[in-house]
């Protein structure tokens, strides 16, 4: 009789430890995506706003984010924009912050919401996000995201997205790898819960020299097609997490009114 009792106890202990170590059965990450055009006009040059929110179906912190691919609608033209006239080097950005890069390298800005595990509990951090033009990779435009968190942990981070052309005439996807962000050295990684950012000229000022004088100007934005597909402009985002799970979120910018000529 002692033997079965030991086995039962061992089985129970293993089952309990398994419950503690692994996410609860059926727990998964979910994602929501929001997108916008500013201005919201057909044929206009615009600023794309995008944001996502990640949650866990068990109500806890989501698993750390590993990658995000934001797929742009067909016809969106980022080639004729004058955004990113200067290139910012990631090492310079990390060493000197946003001031180390030319204003003409800025592509957009936003903020993130990050869960930071501390001991048994967790806090949160709201770092600023700056999007900048990075050095091209394989002929593709590279977007650098600079996250600057101050409290409760002072941390600066650079991660890169590659703008890959789509198979259709225009469009494409912004494929971003998110590095593991440790809360404290050797500690568990933080979880990105949400990011909101823009890619476009809204609130950005660039500078150029004309007749020997430095002149401020607004860069040309991302081109919106002059016709709208039925149902609006569809965006899709694919999310990958460090625990191997994935999530997909969709969003549509409704067809804007026709531009007056």
């Amino acid at each position, binding site marked *: 009789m002692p033997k079965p009792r030991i086995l039962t106890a061992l089985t129970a202990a293993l089952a309990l430890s398994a419950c503690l170590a692994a996410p609860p059965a059926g727990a998964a990450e979910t994602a929501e995506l929001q997108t916008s055009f500013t201005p919201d006009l057909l044929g206009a040059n615009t600023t794309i706003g995008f944001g996502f929110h990640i949650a866990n179906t068990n109500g806890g912190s989501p698993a750390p984010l590993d990658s995000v691919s934001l797929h742009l609608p067909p016809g969106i*033209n980022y*080639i*004729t924009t004058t955004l990113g*006239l*200067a290139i910012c080097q990631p090492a310079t950005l990390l060493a000197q912050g946003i001031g180390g890069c030319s204003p003409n390298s800025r592509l957009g800005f936003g903020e993130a919401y990050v869960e930071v595990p501390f001991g048994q509990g967790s806090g949160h951090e709201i770092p600023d996000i700056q999007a900048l033009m990075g050095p091209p990779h394989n*002929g593709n435009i590279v977007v650098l995201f600079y996250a600057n968190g101050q409290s409760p942990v002072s941390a600066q981070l650079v991660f890169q997205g590659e703008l890959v*052309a789509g198979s259709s005439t*225009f469009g494409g996807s912004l494929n971003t790898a998110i590095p593991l962000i440790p809360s404290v050295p050797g500690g568990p990684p933080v979880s990105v819960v949400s990011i909101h950012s823009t890619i476009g000229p809204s609130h950005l000022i660039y500078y*150029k020299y004309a007749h020997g004088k430095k002149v401020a100007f607004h860069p040309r934005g991302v081109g919106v097609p002059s016709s709208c597909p039925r149902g609006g402009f569809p965006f899709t985002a694919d999310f990958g997490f460090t625990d191997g799970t994935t999530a997909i979120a969709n969003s549509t910018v409704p067809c804007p009114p026709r531009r007056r000529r």
Partner: protein
Amino acid sequence: MARRIGSRNVSGIAARGSRWGHARVRGLLVAGAIASLGALTGVVVLGAGISSAAVATAARTENLRESGKLHVTGRPNGVKLNEQGSASGTISGTIYIHLNLSSQTRVSAEVNIYPSGGSLSGYGSASYRVEGADAVFSGTLSITRGTGKYAHARARGLRFSGSIKRVNDATTVAVSGPLSY
């Protein structure tokens, strides 16, 4: 005229009726025939020479090394840029390029050059990428027609490259390779 005089001489000699005379007549006939043939051959060779020169002119080939500096004309129409400027190098003149960004990574171009005495027209296709302040392209160009001095201009697979200043769409372009005209 030479043939008539020759004939009269031959007739005169033949009238003497000597053996040597017959031999001379035969010799003169052969010589005359050779001379006539020579004269004819000369004409033919001369004609062939003119003909060869004409063909060589038609098939003239030059190694084109052109560069152009252009500025945008009119308002940029989204993915279409009309550019005008000057070309220099093997051929100098006004150059017009219509650039069409057919995708995020490809550009097509219609190129027209107007040197003195004619014109050259062609089409190009190139890969395209953004590199900070510039967008650069690289591909090939074909010359498909010409006028005036360049009426027979033809070229395929010319190297075609350039860059566009994104802030003002000013373009530099380089074309090189063999051109027949």
